[in-house]
């Protein structure tokens, strides 16, 4: 857990520098004064400098930079457990498949992909309400991951469809496809 946090702080500090006199609010951290350093090299981001004392119009007229994408990945341990779960799912051993995914969730509770996998088990079991709920839970933790969001919406669409809610299913499916297009 240490290394990612360190690189996150480094990136944040560099971000502060790039916007020179402006401060970039960092979540949960006391804001540090900008050091003199290089602008970040994140692909797809634009850096702009603003004159410090000039108040520009509040409405944003500039286009937003394309968002930085951080798709969740499964750790080796989670991957082994998910593979196991998929085998167990094929054998219709739902409770055991779910148990394998729950083991992975204990290690990585914030991984949207695992919630989607567990949702798929619920879907296969016929527990459509839980399948949808898990899809929504996955969505809530996949803010910067369009592909994961897309998979979550697909799951939600399946859960709606299985309950005969075809309008909602169609909407969810469209969202899934739109996100996948990016």
């Amino acid at each position, binding site marked *: 857990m240490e290394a990612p946090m360190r690189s996150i702080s480094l990136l944040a500090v560099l971000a502060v520098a790039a916007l020179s006199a402006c401060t970039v*609010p960092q979540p949960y951290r006391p804001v540090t*004064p900008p050091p003199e350093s290089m602008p970040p090299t994140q692909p797809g981001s634009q850096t702009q400098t603003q004159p410090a004392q000039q108040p520009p119009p509040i409405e944003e007229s500039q286009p937003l930079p394309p968002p930085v994408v951080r798709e969740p990945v499964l750790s080796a341990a989670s991957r082994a457990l998910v593979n196991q779960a998929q085998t167990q799912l094929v054998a219709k051993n739902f409770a055991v498949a779910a148990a394998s995914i729950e083991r992975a969730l204990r290690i990585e*509770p914030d991984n949207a992909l695992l919630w989607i996998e567990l949702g798929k088990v619920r879907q296969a079991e016929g527990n459509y309400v839980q399948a949808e709920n898990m899809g929504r839970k996955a969505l809530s933790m996949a803010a910067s991951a369009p592909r994961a969001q897309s998979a979550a919406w697909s799951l939600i669409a399946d859960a709606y469809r299985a309950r005969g809610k075809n309008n909602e299913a169609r909407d969810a499916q469209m969202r899934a496809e739109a996100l996948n297009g990016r």
Partner: protein
Amino acid sequence: MPTFKATFRKYRRQFWVGLALSCGVGLITLLGWLIYLDRIVTQQFEGRRWTLPAQVYAEPLELYVGQSFSADALEQELRRLGYHRVDAAGGPGSYRRRGTRIDFVNRQFQFWDALQESQALSVIARGNAIESLQSAGGEDVPIFRLDPLLIGSIFPIHGEDRVVVTPEQMPQFLPAALKVVEDRKFDTHHGVNFTAILRAAWVNMRAGQIEQGGSTLTQQLVKSYFLDNRRTLGRKIEEAFMAMLLEVHFEKTDLLNAYVNEIYLGQDGRRAVHGFGLASQFYFGKPLDELQLHEVALLVAIVRGPSYYDPRRHPDRARVRRDLVLKLMGEFKIVDPKTAAQAAAKPLGIVGTGTSGGGYYPAFLDLVRRTLRRDYREEDLTEAGLRIFSTLNPLVQNRAENALEQELARLEKARKTKKAQKLEGVVVVTAPQNGEVIAMVGGRDVGFDGFNRALDAKRSIGSLVKPAIYLAAIESGRYNATSIIDDSEVEVKLADGKLWRPHNYTEEATGPVPLVRALSQSLNLASVRLGLDVGLPNVTKELKSLGLENEPPQNPSVLLGSVDVSPLEVAQLYTAFANGGFSTPLRAVRAVVDTSGKPLKSFALEVTPVADPTAVYQVNRMLVQVMERGTGRAARANLPSGLVVAGKSGTSSDYRDSWFAGFSGSHQAVVWIGYDDNSPTGLTGSSGSLAVWSRLMGSIATTSFSSPLPEGLQDVSIEFMTGFAASPECGEEVISIAVPQGVQLPVKPGCETGTLQSVGERAKEWLQGIIR
């Protein structure tokens, strides 16, 4: 005068008939009595074979690369499981350690979802993390599950507890040792050994006291079946007959197996330890088949008198008798005399009682029992040999118990006046993402199986209620974290016409403050105003949605937490915050399996959306500020630097209850301190429970609370005290908070950079990537 002889000759026939009749009657009575005894003893024998208490296991330790575990910590966990250190490669239940590398052989274990075979593994743990996990062949193992700790049983009302062992699980010299010490003629006698009885009687008479027992193993088995200890001659004769009857019906091996599983070997509070299987766990913390010679000999020694030879209270006596047993085993060639002598040189090897090696967790087990009573009858739980896989984490439980005990002791020492009664406390630790209860402390006396405050002490929650008010406010759309509310005198007319005038703990009114400050500093006046504006019904409805069992009544005092809730329920309530608006029912059991290993029930993980995730996110960011700047900031001293946590303190009226509920990325803990009789303690949530909470969280491996910024929100920097938009170079006590996009903020006078808000917009997108 007729002579006796003449009379006899005259009535000779009647005499013999009478004699024959009385003999006949006597014989029939005897037969009847024997049949009666036979029925009792065989019923007991057959019946007892099947009464097995349910065994409860803790959550198994999983090992994987990257896990936060030092080599020392791993070794400690292996020892908790009763693994012993060896120098050369050993069998199941052994490990070797060379610096950062630990090689171990796990015990085979039938989990409810899979069988884990016994195999050899190598772990290298450098610093605080597992670097590599490999099988004997050098293959990387992605994840490995160790056999779980047996934490207790659900035993019947009469308090007997046992772990049944099959003949294969017995050390091969155990039966022989028992025979040579207790009953040398076991294989040949028919239940009663008369010469032994006579010899014992002779020895005891000469010594003037009871020195030898003349009972065979079979007689001891019979005696064990009947719980009263009447040592009358009549009872002894009954037992003798029953022993003989048993021998008629059953094979010697069956009788010996029954003996090994039945004989009383110790007392653990309310729980009577029966059988060598449980005794092995109770005294040595490991399964019977892993015991070494000197350990088996000790158990055999204890048979003669578990109280008298209690190795914990009378280690010298126990040692002397154990060495005698070893000597006999050597003499009778059960083992080589030299081996016996070596074993006699070894120390007793008993593990301490309490939390090391098979501890006893009454509050948690109580929760397990209550959970299962919904689906199982008492007889199923205590007799059917169920195996229950629980969610307890023994390490965290240990830390929770220590944190509570130490802090309560410290608080009492610091008090000027000595109170007659002692402060009590509760700790409930959960993994909020899956709702598992991983530790529970029901009272200050952690091993005492009495009033389980965690489940049954419904106490006023005080300020713990506030996050629900603020959540309702944000969900209404009319408030955000920077909205200004007035912390000033407020009067509420109650239903009965009386006026309610709440006040702050500081007795002062702070005036206009931003929402985040009102929550962080737990300002009562502002919170009451907010709650009234949002509407009391919305607040109570919010509490019910979040997971409170009963919607509170429409009393304004509810806004200051005048509602009685148990600590477990508080934990359930806060789970919705820790899970970003999703609730999951708290559970203590994962699965139940029958004696043959067939899964009977598994408790599936369920989630339900209970509040708008975007609103909950905003409240959670404020709860982080509680820990950064508010009433929870004293926790920082005990926490690893950089660890992000969120929480809320709670103090009920007149300082009767001190609460703290808070969460990190992987754990949530609720702590309560108070007096059982509800008298004021003088402690606030910050001055009492917070210290227990932070001590606990600081002592377990936990991760930062982190959640991605939802769509539609932006990060802004404001002054904590005033709510003005600011920046670190220009502003006092600048904090970062989340508000909906498009929110206009007044800028602190003199700091008009103006770029702050639009910059915030652009930065939001950027940061979304960085946060993860």
